[in-house]
């Protein structure tokens, strides 16, 4: 009997250990490198990535961890260093929003050559070996801003473009889109494109300066919502100057309610993080490539009729 018991106990222990080993979820660390810590849209992307990590961990019995490595201020060199460090720290995949595609191409290629798949979001590096890019089509985005603005200005007036960082290629393409679409409206004149440091205060100050110097401006095409991240950025009476802006963060929604901004075009910032993680998990765990390298996300129009419904999304999207 004793002779039987010992092998039985060993077999039981071994099978228990095997079950436990099979129970341990596979650990996956995904690096997330956005453009800058201070920009709220990237904090929303981070929440999206962390939510996706939690949801997909549960769904596929994985242990996905998001390693957020974003420079404090926009700096492509720091982003490249972060990608290199993530590879050395053993990240399984990386999602990056490129401040300068040229500067990041080598770092992305090196990561891919080292077996770490890279996805881009918001701002792409088209010449790199990234397997997917998720975000808006920037030229179309600019065109949509102009078309919406022309609609509410009845196709006539003097407009200005608020354009953020002059070095960002995605913003340059949006400006190009605005200018291309403006050609369809001969009675609309573009006064100029105004760049500024991408902080809400700098953006609001730029709008104020431009309006002081150009009181004849009757419309603003804002290709990013920086100015609307502050209260009272638009000092005019609602309806006197028309404005269409990209981004629909909670602070921006107040301008819809006050009537200062009839239309916001919401970028799916939460999805930047969520979809990037989904793509990376598909690639790493299931060896599955996306249907197309460009995964284009649509802009969500927000106006007075749907502003309250849209606002409820932020309970989920904001950092908890």
């Amino acid at each position, binding site marked *: 009997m004793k002779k039987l018991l010992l092998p039985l106990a060993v077999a039981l222990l071994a099978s228990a250990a095997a079950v436990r080993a099979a129970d341990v979820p596979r650990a996956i660390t995904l690096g997330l490198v956005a453009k800058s810590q201070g920009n709220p849209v990237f904090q929303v992307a981070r929440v999206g990535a962390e939510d996706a990590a939690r949801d997909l961990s549960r769904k596929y019995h994985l242990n996905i961890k998001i390693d957020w490595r974003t420079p404090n201020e926009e700096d492509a060199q720091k982003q490249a260093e972060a990608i290199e460090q993530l590879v050395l*720290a053993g990240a399984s995949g990386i999602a990056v929003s490129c*401040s300068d595609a040229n500067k990041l191409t080598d770092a992305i290629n090196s990561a891919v050559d080292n077996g770490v798949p890279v996805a881009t979001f918001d701002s792409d590096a088209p010449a790199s070996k990234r397997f997917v890019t998720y975000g808006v089509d920037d030229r179309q985005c600019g065109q949509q801003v102009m078309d919406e603005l022309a609609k509410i200005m009845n196709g006539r007036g003097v407009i200005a473009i608020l354009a953020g960082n002059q070095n960002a290629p995605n913003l340059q393409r949006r400006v190009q889109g605005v200018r291309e679409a403006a050609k369809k409206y001969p009675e609309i004149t573009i006064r100029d494109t105004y760049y500024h440091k991408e902080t809400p205060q700098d953006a609001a100050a730029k709008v104020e300066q431009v309006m002081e110097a150009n009181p004849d401006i009757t419309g603003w095409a804002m290709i990013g919502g920086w100015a609307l991240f502050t209260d009272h950025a638009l000092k005019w009476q609602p309806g006197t100057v028309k404005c269409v802006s990209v981004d629909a963060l909670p602070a921006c929604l107040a301008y819809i309610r006050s009537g200062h901004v009839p239309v916001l075009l919401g970028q799916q910032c939460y999805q930047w993080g969520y979809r990037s993680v989904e793509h990376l998990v598909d690639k790493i765990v299931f060896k599955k490539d996306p249907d197309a390298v460009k995964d284009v996300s649509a802009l969500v129009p927000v106006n007075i009729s749907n502003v309250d419904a849209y606002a409820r999304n932020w309970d989920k999207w904001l950092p908890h």
Partner: protein
Amino acid sequence: MVPRFRQALGFQESGLVLIVLVLGVLLAACSGTVRLPAFARGPDGVRHRVFTTDAAGNRAPAFVARNKFFNAQNLAQLAKDTSFIAIMAVGAGIVIISGGIDLSVGAVYALASVVGSLVLRHYGPDGPGAGAPGLGILLGAAAGLGTAVLCGLVNGSLIVALKVHPFIITLGSMAILRGFAFVITKGQSIGDFPAVFRQLVRYEVGDGLSLVPLAVMVLVMVAGWIFLSRLAAGRRVYAIGGNELAARFSGIRVGRAKLGVYLLAGLTAGISGLLSLGYYGAATSGDGQGYELNVIAAAVVGGASLTGGRGSAAGVVLGALIIQMISSGIVILGIDQNYSQIIIGAVVIAAVVLDNFNTWLGRRRLAQSPP
């Protein structure tokens, strides 16, 4: 402990070396292991992934387990990341030792990079000078370094001629130079350099180790050490930083010496900018934003006194290395990045406090020693 260690090793920066060693040991001990893909060089000299084949004939990529911090790739990466700031910090450190300050080094770095990049692109694969990449590299380097030296010279001349505090002059030139960089590039990223230039700076040895930035950093540090401790011009910098009036009365041509230190700060910013061009392959007018503060932090952590008269080239390089080790350590240990600025800021303050305490101890020992 630090003074004893310094006494034992007998050189000024031993305390900083001790801090680097302690940090290294701590990071190696706490970081754990990481599975990195295995590579091997083929007969053509190109690195290829290593694959294993199991009994069923399935190929799978091979991995090797290594300490996250203490492995050759990570140390080479650490050296490379340190080098861009450390090279600039040597020049800016000499300015600080002379009692001055240069807030424009980040902007000089950007302007030198974009000027160099425009010339290099002309000789790049799609440029009109594609047939002469060697000439392109020489002209690109000359244009970048020449621009940087000119910026330093202008800074120094304005400071000496107008007798305005260097903080004000270099604050102004910081904005002007960045503005020039933007006007020249029209906000575009400039890339497409001759392949040979990229290969030269990214030249790899052994297991994919990129050591050119490290080699340049060491060369600049040695040159800075020779200048400061072996040449009369370097001794004059200490004299001016210690007491400018006394230096003037002892016959030192203060204006000329100051011109020289700002020129050196420009030159090192230019070297760093060129190196980053080769390594990262592009330049924009936004490059190097905020680097002036990183450079000053490296110099201060490395023992340079903001009131002048004290510091060394090796010290500022070690200061840059310590800051980079902490920054890399935050990634390696998986600490939430939200805390990185708090940690690095605290280290800079702690370094200054420790340095002051060390100086006070030294003075007390000197006062107590028998005549």
